[in-house]
């Protein structure tokens, strides 16, 4: 019942304060849920595109990897077997995480997993000074780029119970609590 406490006002508060609180957190939770839908949609679509395009491979992205993980990227790309596994993991990972986020199923682990995935994207090609992107990316970035932002947004979703309303998880939580 913890989630209800966050989002629904207690009757012991004064009416004004209650209204303010209610509006504020109403907006917050609403936006958190929306954020979850949006990021879920984004990751799921990315995954679908790769599923439909059997020729896709992370090879291009990994080849262009620079910075701390360049060595790991090299190891992956030099080994066809490992590359295939990575490709599959990425593709289906995106699908699974995206689906989970949109439906709100195992939201917390999914959000953490998504944050990790995006964090990896970030680390394999961080926009630091001295690193020239091998594949031109739209926009200008310095240290902070969209992957990092999205990863942190997922962390926010992971730790926000409010994000788990309008979610299939709610059914199980309810049951468990009852």
């Amino acid at each position, binding site marked *: 019942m913890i989630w209800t406490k966050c989002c629904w006002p207690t009757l012991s508060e004064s009416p004004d304060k209650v209204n303010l609180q209610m509006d504020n957190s109403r907006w917050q939770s609403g936006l958190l849920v929306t954020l979850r839908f949006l990021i879920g949609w984004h990751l799921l679509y990315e995954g679908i595109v790769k599923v439909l395009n059997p020729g896709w491979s992370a090879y291009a992205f990994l080849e262009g990897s620079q910075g701390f993980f360049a060595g790991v990227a090299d190891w992956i790309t030099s080994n066809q077997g490992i590359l295939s596994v990575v490709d599959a993991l990425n593709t289906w990972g995106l699908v699974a995480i995206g689906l989970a986020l949109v439906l709100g199923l195992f939201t917390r682990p999914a959000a953490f997993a998504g944050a990790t995935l995006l964090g990896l994207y970030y680390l394999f090609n961080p926009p630091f000074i001295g690193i*020239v*992107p*091998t594949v*031109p990316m*739209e926009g200008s970035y310095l240290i902070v780029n969209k992957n990092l932002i999205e990863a942190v947004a997922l962390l926010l979703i992971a730790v926000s119970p409010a994000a788990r309303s309008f979610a299939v998880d709610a059914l199980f939580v309810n049951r468990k609590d009852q």
Partner: protein
Amino acid sequence: MTDKDKTIPKLSRRGLLRGLGSVPLLGAVGWAGMAASDKFSDKRETTRNALNINASAPPAVGSMSGDPIRVGIIGFGGRGHRLCMSLGFATDDWLERMSRAASNNPDDNRLADYLDQDDQNVRLVGVCDAFDVRAEEALESFNTETNKIKRYRTYEDMIASSEIDAVVIATPDHWHGPMAIAALEAGKHVYLEKPMTHNIEETYRLREAARNSKGVLMIGHHQRQTQSFLTAQDVIRKNVLGHISLVQVNTNRNKDTGAWQYPIHEKASPDTIDWQQFIGSAPMVPFNKEHFFRWRKWWAYGSGLSGDLLSHDYDRINCVLNMGIPDSVMSAGGIYTHRDGRNVPDVMQVSMDYSDPRNAPVQNGGIKQGMTVLYSATLGNGHTRPTLLMGHDGTMELDNRLRLFTDADSTKFAELIKAGTFEPDKPVFEYDPAAEGVDAFTSATTAYFANKGLLWTYRDGKRVDPTFLHLREWLSCIRNGGKPSCGIDEGFEEAITAHMAGLSYKMGKRIDWDPTMEELVPIPGYDLDEVLLANVERVA
């Protein structure tokens, strides 16, 4: 071979290309191709200062008032129709067809453009054509209350008439010389379609006649009126491109009509066509409809790719670079696509070399001199190739639109390129007079001519017909005096060059020009005019 530079082209936002239609006479000037940065306006200043190009205004036209000039048209075929239209005389048939086209397609402005045309203050009082149907069409369409038009059976009659002030000649090539000479000697003004002449000897005679006549001679290279050419002239004056070593002009056409396979009129017969008149000085052959309507396919009447299309391209470049007659010409080619009995080539390469430093074209800062103008043509493919003027510091793409590119290895712009102000693969300057309008090309041939600046141009952002402008300039010179932009000197250069190209093709030899003697270097054992006029593809 070295690996290409490893840096990646920056993704940059394209500069403004669209024109400011409200700026009079300038059309659309674009400062494109600059890398995205906050210092956009700074860079524009730098570019402007670095290039200092002015999109020029066209030459002013003198007064057109006074009594109407009485014009006679000799040769009322395809081109003749067009010329009369630009004088303000469109046939009923054309008006009706355009009206129907406009109602089917609201974007079709051809009728509106015509009606919008300024009055040229001429009367079309005479028509001379060997084909009765054409002459009669002119009489029917152009005989009105204000305009009385008469048919003259022969061109001599028309030229001798006191009712004619000026003639427009749009006949097959082999008549151009004789008619123009006769008209000038009779003191008439002459607008002569290209190519100026059909053989070498009459080129000199025509020059004599023009110099001694009070008649104004204008050669029909109307693309000189195109806005982008005026701007191009400024680019050359300012030596933006550095030493220009190679100019490439092309013809790519793929339709049967593009290969001169014009329709044959159903009413054509020895009764309706004065065959003798048509043949003139060409070798007499029995009546032949193919020859009459598709005369361009034979050396006897036409001049093939070199006279018909190269002449236009040569003049376009000549008016920008002023290079004159080449020192030598080498042609090659063959009949590879339209093997239908013609004897003019349908694939042709003509290399016009300006190699003698004494005669080098005017190149600013020119310690280094020399240039080749290369004409490459095929009538078996319609893929457009741009006209390119390639200089050491930059390249100019010159069609109806003008684009300037700096060369990655330019010495003059090296600093600016290093600083990122100029990016070699993007135009640093773009002049697109059509930017405001939507141009619907109605056919591949139309697109071909439009790209050469031969179909329309823009004044005050308004689309106008360069043929109209060219005729207007001629008429203005008639009324007010002055030297026409494409007169005997320009025509002489074009004619000689075209003949050199044709000769080189037919003989398989290099043809040289002697500028001191002002004549073609003779080739022992050959009468050059005989070769040119021989109605065969090649001479042994």
